[in-house]
């Protein structure tokens, strides 16, 4: 117990001394774990939202739809209710295919379900605003209403007839908006379509007024809901339903179809989470490397007073682990809050969305990995160093690179210094290059997404009603890219400052030999820019490749000038960000630095 208290006290004291570093670790881990938890939870959350909506709306186990209408079709569908495995039903009911126009002239295809004014035993849409259908009024599916910007009390025109919107409702019988039509007119393919309800007589009148296409459907509840997927195979080939060319939609199919809108969202979030995790490891590892001499001296001090390897490892790791786990908890909280918006881009489902257990475990593993991966090296080094050398530990001595030194001698002073500083820490240069590449990959992929033409959800693909899936993907890409850029900025500042601190003695010596503060600052900036250059150049094709790996169908490449601009702008921003820490470091007193190094 005493050891635990000691470890905690030492870790807390160290965290207090390095508040900025602890805050950076917290920020990096929070961002990475939140993103990853959301990404990994998306499918599970989509299933959960469907299940909650299904429970609240007495969702059917199977919906059987026929592309035709008429008494024979209704009779054929109704004959399914005689089966022993069907315990309840709703319908048959009429589905009318029409166009809907709002007062703002936004038009969309719509399917109108003709329902009773009283609640059904199966498929009982949950009214979330207003009231259920009444003669002369229509109820809109919530996802559709939100996309249209229509509320209760507004009027909409369906197939040329004006109707007041008397209510907004959700149902689990159909997929989320814009897949309200499970089949198209006459059983053909369906377009992006919204869903509305009317009374049976209103639906019949609507269909008759313009000779609109009509299909028929029946909702079934089975004795064994789990058997819904195989129900259609149990219907004999000579059953009347087969004669009227029917389509079977199980609840499992509908739940799965809900995820179509998230098809790109999950990889965007998961890959984004990994990329953010990588940037977090890069930044934190650089911070840890910058403290390696201090940590080694600390380990030596602990050894000198009798601490064993286990205690030393615990002291050195606890600070980072504690910050990482705090970041994990914060990230998971943010994920929980952001989940409904990310997992349900339409308003077609109800219920609470929480990160799944798998996602919580994965995010926590990521947080621990960030802490351990970035501190294991320095910790092992500190533990392996004998007590006396540890007490006098100085920063790791870089390797000599004669060819690079000879090459740099040909360059102007800032580049000479920059190249030699880069060569001092080749591992960090690789991290810097990867960090830049990661950012450029995200920006290029975002540009590629924006370059595509998308079919809107309005009439004939009009973008008056935006493509929610594309919009959702773009929003997520923007959010991930902004987070990546934010972490990359933190990393650039960290890399520059750590490089400056590690090289402060060398830079002070160079100043005594006649280098100006400007040359030293430019050298420190150049040390960050040199590895960023290949990172930026590589990031452009990698970003486009990443985009292509998710895209299906024809792809419009973004303009070459845009991609070149991204690489150039990244380098310019990198240079600008290095200026402040580099100038601050270059202005440190030479005499004070040399005296400190001698002491």
């Amino acid at each position: 117990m005493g050891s635990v208290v000691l470890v905690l006290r030492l870790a807390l004291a160290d965290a207090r001394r390095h508040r900025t570093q602890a805050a950076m670790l917290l920020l990096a881990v929070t961002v990475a774990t939140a993103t990853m938890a959301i990404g990994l939870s998306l499918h599970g959350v989509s299933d959960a939202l469907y299940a909650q909506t299904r429970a609240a709306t007495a969702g059917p186990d199977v919906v059987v739809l026929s592309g035709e209408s008429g008494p024979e079709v209704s009779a054929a569908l109704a004959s399914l209710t005689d089966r022993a495995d069907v315990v309840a039903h709703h319908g048959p009911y009429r589905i009318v295919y029409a166009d809907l126009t709002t007062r703002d002239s936004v038009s969309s295809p719509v399917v109108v379900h003709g329902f009773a004014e009283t609640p059904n035993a199966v498929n009982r849409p949950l009214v979330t605003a207003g009231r259920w259908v009444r003669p002369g009024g229509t109820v809109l599916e919530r996802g559709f209403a939100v996309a249209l910007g229509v509320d209760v009390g507004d009027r909409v025109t369906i197939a040329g007839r004006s109707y007041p919107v008397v209510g907004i409702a959700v149902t689990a019988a159909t997929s989320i908006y814009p897949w309200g039509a499970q089949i198209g007119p006459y059983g053909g393919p369906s377009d992006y379509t919204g869903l509305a309800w009317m009374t049976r007589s209103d639906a019949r009148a609507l269909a008759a007024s313009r000779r609109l296409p009509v299909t028929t459907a029946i909702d079934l509840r089975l004795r064994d809901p789990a058997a819904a997927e195989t129900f259609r195979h149990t219907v004999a080939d000579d059953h009347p339903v087969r004669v009227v060319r029917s389509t079977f939609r199980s609840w499992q199919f509908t739940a799965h179809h809900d995820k179509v809108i998230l098809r790109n969202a999950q990889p965007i979030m998961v890959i984004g989470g990994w990329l953010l995790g990588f940037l977090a490891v890069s930044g934190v590892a650089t911070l840890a490397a910058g403290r390696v001499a201090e940590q080694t001296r600390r380990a030596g001090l602990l050894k000198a007073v009798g601490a064993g390897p286990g205690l030393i490892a615990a002291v050195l790791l606890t600070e980072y682990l504690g910050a990482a786990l705090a970041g994990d908890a914060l990230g998971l909280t943010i994920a929980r809050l952001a989940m409904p918006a990310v997992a349900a881009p339409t308003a077609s489902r109800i219920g609470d969305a929480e990160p799944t257990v798998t996602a919580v475990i994965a995010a926590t593993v990521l947080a621990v990995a960030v802490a351990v991966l970035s501190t294991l090296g320095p910790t092992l080094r500190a533990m392996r160093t004998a007590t006396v050398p540890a007490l006098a530990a100085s920063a790791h001595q870089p390797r000599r690179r004669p060819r690079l030194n000879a090459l740099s001698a040909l360059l102007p002073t800032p580049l000479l210094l920059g190249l030699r500083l880069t060569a001092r820490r080749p591992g960090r240069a690789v991290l810097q290059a990867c960090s830049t590449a990661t950012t450029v990959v995200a920006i290029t992929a975002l540009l590629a997404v924006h370059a595509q033409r998308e079919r809107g959800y309005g009439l004939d693909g009009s973008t008056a009603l935006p493509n929610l899936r594309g919009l959702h993907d773009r929003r997520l890409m923007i959010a991930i890219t902004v987070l990546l850029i934010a972490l990359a900025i933190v990393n650039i500042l960290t890399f520059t400052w750590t490089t400056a601190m590690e090289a402060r003695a060398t830079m002070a010596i160079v100043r005594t030999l006649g280098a100006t503060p400007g040359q030293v600052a430019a050298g420190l900036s150049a040390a960050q820019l040199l590895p960023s250059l290949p990172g930026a150049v590589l990031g452009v094709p990698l970003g486009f490749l990443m985009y292509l790996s998710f895209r299906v169908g024809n792809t419009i490449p973004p303009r070459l000038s845009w991609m070149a601009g991204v690489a150039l702008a990244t380098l310019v921003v990198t240079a600008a960000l290095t200026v402040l820490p580099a100038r601050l470091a270059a202005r440190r007193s030479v005499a004070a630095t040399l005296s400190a190094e001698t002491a």
Partner: protein
Amino acid sequence: MNRSGAVLRARGLVKHYGRGQSLVRAVDEVDLEVPEGQTLAVMGPSGCGKSTLLHLLGGLERPTAGEVWVAGRRIDTLGERALARMRRRSVGFVFQAFHLVEELSAAENVELPALLAGHSPREARRRAGLLLERVGLAGRARHLPSRLSGGQRQRVAIARALVNDPLVVLADEPTGNLDTAATLDVLRIFEDLRAAGQTLVIVTHDERVAATADRLVSMRDGMFVDDTRLAAAQPRGLGGLGGLLGLEG
């Protein structure tokens, strides 16, 4: 050089650290002139302000008050860039802790100030080669500092200080970290420099080092308490060290 022929001149030089009760007068109203070719030793107890004086003379620190002139040019009012240029051309530093760049070889360390001064890599290499030969380290040119003894490191540092043929070399406890044999090696080099007419200011605890000087200044509590001219140990040649080492032309 100014009209008096002084390479280095300080008037009313003051350097304070801290404030109020924690005020430290590291250098307190010091006047100094170092003529061309003179070897000046500055002695005194630890903390008396010797190193601070050296830093002020070399433009590494700015005085709280007073003036510093190098080769007839006032430097305490110069900006950092101008100070850096002045150091490149006019001043060479030798430190007690050597302060070599650890990842550069002996030759690369010596070349560095020449490259900073704008010499071509070939010229920088030529100068480094000559100076390393002069300090007896031609065979160690490719060695990293970590593979050299303390004395050898200090000789590399001296070679580095001389590579741009400076008007004055400022040495801060150059033998402070060395054993007797290494100290003698360094003393021999300083003797050669003195004989060649190189202006030298050496801050030291070591009386053997001070004995090689033309003039000895004693410091206490930031002030000069004694200024003694010593008998010249050996006749000196004419011209700068660059001439001696064949760096000119």
